[in-house]
């Protein structure tokens, strides 16, 4: 029986479903000149969703629909961050989309459905809701990557993303079916309870491997990272920004739900798998990023290495470890929005500003955006006093507390390697002279973009002071 209470627990998701459908309808009835209305409605919808998520959050974990849906603090943090990242994307994408005649209503409704998928995914209490959320998130994302139909690169990226994404969810589904076979239930808590008593422990472990592979795909961790650079490069820049921030947050939720809530007793098996993926991601991501000339590809490899850092936290299966991984993912998402935001601010019609050399001498041409980009780069490199440093310290700490000093040392050695390519971007912006034939930058940037980007960028400095508050919130989410 569906009770009213169940619906109330699900209110933000129900609201967003309705709102996304309405936005889709609304957009049909306006002409192209009035498209700004869709834009603002989209932003207001997201703001209201944030309000509903935070305002209706019960102090204790509550479940709905017989445990299919869980509303806890972890889901709250992830949902809020995803919604904020999406609002940032909406605001920063508008001038870019307008310049390229891609300013269409579908962009907004697809993004909303995708976000809805993430919200379901991170709140999933059973394998079914989990898979449902994942698919609902992925399918609109594939379409978003292909938003620019004219571009071959975009279509290629979308096909790659789709094929590999389908493969990954197939593997995940296969793993889930094995788990179901071994435990006879789809409910994550019941799976947890029956891990010890199952007559088929090997089947369970076999299924676990597939789940870890699926999670690895979602994160883009080595050796399941192949899709990431191509998608970043091919996707329209605003969508690349979305792909760089939102799925990573979703993946943290996915990993926690599956591995801890569902298969927590098997932590001894999976934490080493994650540790190995962490080490490989750190190595491959950081080393290959050095060789990139395309800024978006460089950010893709940098993302891969950062996923290694997130795994550093997850590989310590304690509340502290999860809290640090969650902290890292939140921090990472908001660093990426700055890096991509600067690119969006500088790009204009016919000029994507996506090569590292396009940033040459940026300090002389646009000192403010150069400053924002420098903040993002130093933060990604984990240099204090920027936010990325706090995140790095927390995951390193949790790795050391988890007895994996070796992994922490691997991480820092490759972060020295990684430092080089972040510094190279700063070098290009500040120490190189602009080319004579350099493409002129956009004459003036959209004020909303400029303001939001500035707040986001300066926030990376300010947040170091408030790291304690956020970390306490993350800790509370896992009952530490």
């Amino acid at each position, binding site marked *: 029986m569906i009770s009213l209470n169940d619906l109330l627990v699900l209110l933000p998701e129900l609201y967003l479903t309705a709102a996304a459908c309405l936005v889709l309808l609304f957009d049909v009835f306006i002409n192209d000149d009035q498209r700004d209305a869709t834009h603002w409605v989209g932003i207001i919808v997201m703001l209201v969703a944030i309000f509903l998520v935070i305002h209706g959050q019960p102090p204790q974990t509550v479940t709905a629909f017989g445990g299919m849906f869980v509303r806890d603090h972890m889901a709250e943090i992830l949902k809020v961050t995803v919604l904020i990242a999406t609002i940032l994307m909406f605001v920063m994408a508008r001038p870019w989309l307008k310049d390229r005649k891609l300013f269409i209503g579908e962009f907004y409704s697809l993004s909303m459905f995708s976000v809805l998928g993430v919200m379901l995914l991170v709140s999933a209490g059973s394998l079914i809701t989990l898979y449902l959320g994942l698919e609902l998130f992925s399918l609109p994302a594939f379409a978003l990557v292909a938003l620019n139909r004219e571009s071959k690169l975009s279509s290629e990226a979308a096909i790659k993303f789709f094929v590999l994404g389908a493969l990954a969810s197939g593997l995940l589904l296969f793993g889930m079916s094995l788990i179901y076979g071994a435990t006879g239930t789809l409910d994550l808590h019941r799976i947890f309870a029956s891990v010890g008593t199952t007559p088929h422990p090997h089947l369970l472990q076999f299924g676990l491997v597939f789940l870890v592979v699926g999670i690895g795909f979602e994160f883009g961790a080595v050796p399941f990272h192949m899709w990431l650079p191509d998608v970043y490069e091919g996707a329209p820049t605003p969508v690349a920004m979305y792909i760089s921030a939102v799925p990573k947050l979703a993946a943290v939720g996915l990993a926690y739900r599956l591995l801890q809530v569902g298969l927590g007793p098997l932590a001894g098996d999976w934490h080493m798998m994650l540790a190995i993926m962490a080490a490989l991601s750190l190595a491959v991501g950081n080393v290959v990023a050095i060789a990139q000339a395309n800024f978006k590809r460089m950010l893709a490899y940098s993302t891969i290495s950062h996923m290694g850092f997130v795994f550093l936290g997850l590989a310590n299966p304690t509340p502290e470890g999860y*809290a640090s991984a969650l902290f890292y993912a939140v921090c990472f998402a908001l660093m990426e929005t700055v890096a991509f935001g600067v690119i969006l601010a500088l790009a204009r019609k016919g000029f994507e500003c996506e090569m590292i050399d396009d940033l040459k001498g940026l*300090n002389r041409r646009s*000192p403010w955006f150069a400053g924002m980009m420098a903040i993002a780069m*130093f933060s990604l490199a984990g*240099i*204090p*006093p920027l936010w990325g*440093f*706090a995140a790095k*310290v*927390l995951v*390193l*700490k949790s790795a*050391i*507390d988890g007895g994996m*000093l070796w992994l*922490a*040392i691997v991480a*820092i050695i490759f*972060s*020295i390697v990684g*430092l*080089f390519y972040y*510094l190279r971007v*700063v*070098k290009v912006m*500040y*120490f190189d002279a602009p080319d004579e034939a350099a493409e002129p930058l956009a004459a003036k940037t959209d004020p909303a973009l400029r303001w939001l980007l500035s707040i986001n960028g300066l926030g990376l400095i300010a947040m*170091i*002071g408030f*790291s*304690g508050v956020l*970390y*306490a919130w993350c*800790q509370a989410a896992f009952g530490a």
Partner: protein
Amino acid sequence: MTTWPILSVLIWLPCLGAILVLLAGNARPRLARWLSLAFTVITFAISLWMLFQYHEGPGGFQMQEKLRWIPGINTSYHLGVDGIAVALIVLTAFVSILVVAGAWEVIKDRVHQYMAAMLVLDGLLIGVFCAMDALLFYLFFEAILIPMFFLIGAWGGPRRVYATLKFFIYTFFGSIFFLIGLLYMYHRAGTFDLPTLWNFPFTMQEQSWLFFSFLIAFAVKTPMVPVHTWLPDAHVEAPTGGSVILAAIMLKVGTYGFIRFSLPILPDASQHFAWLIIVLSLIAIIYIGYVALVQPDMKKLVAYSSIAHMGFVTLGMFIVYMLARQLHDIQMAQLGVQGAVVQMISHGFVSGALFTCIGVMYDRLHTREISAYGGLAKVMPWFAAFWVLFAMANTGLPGTSGFVGEFMVILSSFTANPWIALFAAYSLIIGAGYTLWLIKRIVWGTAPTQKAASMPEINTREGLVLGAFAVAVLAMGVWPWPLMHLMDSSVAQLVTHLMTSKV
């Protein structure tokens, strides 16, 4: 006791100044200059106020401030100063004024960004000396790389990009192991608070590992042989102001780290590996002295001489163990540490002054080759007088600040082992060798070219900057008592702490 957070003001006031200077923009260089001068002067005034607020008698850490930062990992915004830190903070604030004044007309391009970087450096360096929380210390320790990176990279010489990347990656490489060490200490002790860590009983094996993780960081920063190779490159390519800050203050951050971390947290490992540091220090003093002798480039020469002088500092710090623990000569041990700190301060003034002198010459001829200069005594008599004074201080002539620290270190090492003292004292000869030879080539003789013969005499601004350095060097040399008195009890407390074994 003060009621307002004087240390926080010292740290954040220059940073606030940096924001205002940046807002002044590229179009208003005059405003940027005056603003930065105002902020450095106010910071210096507050640092003097702090100096008078500090009570030498009881020693210990005073003017403490503690705010919650990340309670989840037990780290806090904890500041406090003892006598050693007070001296270094005043030094930092003092040198910052001279650096801003020294760059007045010299920096023409993007003045606001240059000045802002200097102000941020000023604040962050003061932060390093105030921090009483290990993670906070690390934050400042590492953050100073960012403004320095920009200073060298944007206003440096022809190979500035190479030098600044080398500088950044080299020091980052060192300090990241320090971070792992800190996290390991947290893992064991459950806090980043320094006073707790000082008393935490780490086992000998842990101490040894931690010792090396700290050593990498501080040795790179100091720099000690064999990880000194970034320094000559960085100095040669850095603009004058960058070199002055680098030599006068940033190098002290490394040795200050030894005082705050290695010595008190890991007394037993420090004792066990003291021989290693002493040997490395002696190599720095002698070998690097010879290296300095053959440099054709003035800045490189002074850079190498800096490394040799920092050798005295590390020697003075680690000789303590032989004196205090083996010979039980507490007084000599205190003399050694005190000598090391005096040497730190004195080297701050002397090397800062020397790099300023080189900058003055570079502004006129745009070369740092020693052979391009000559006959300064005739061409620029006032300037030549300053040169000779600072050169004498660099060789450690009695009556200048250079003498005091070196003499104290040599005296205490003589008590520990006459051989060590012999090698250390040998540096006085080499130091005199390379410095006097430099003076002979550039101050005496005749100018090699017409251009070198017609260099204009220093102007009032340059005279004031060099004069301020000269006053400091002479005052410290003639009457070092106030400085020694300032840190007497702090050094005594440190040495007493070192006496107790943790294992």
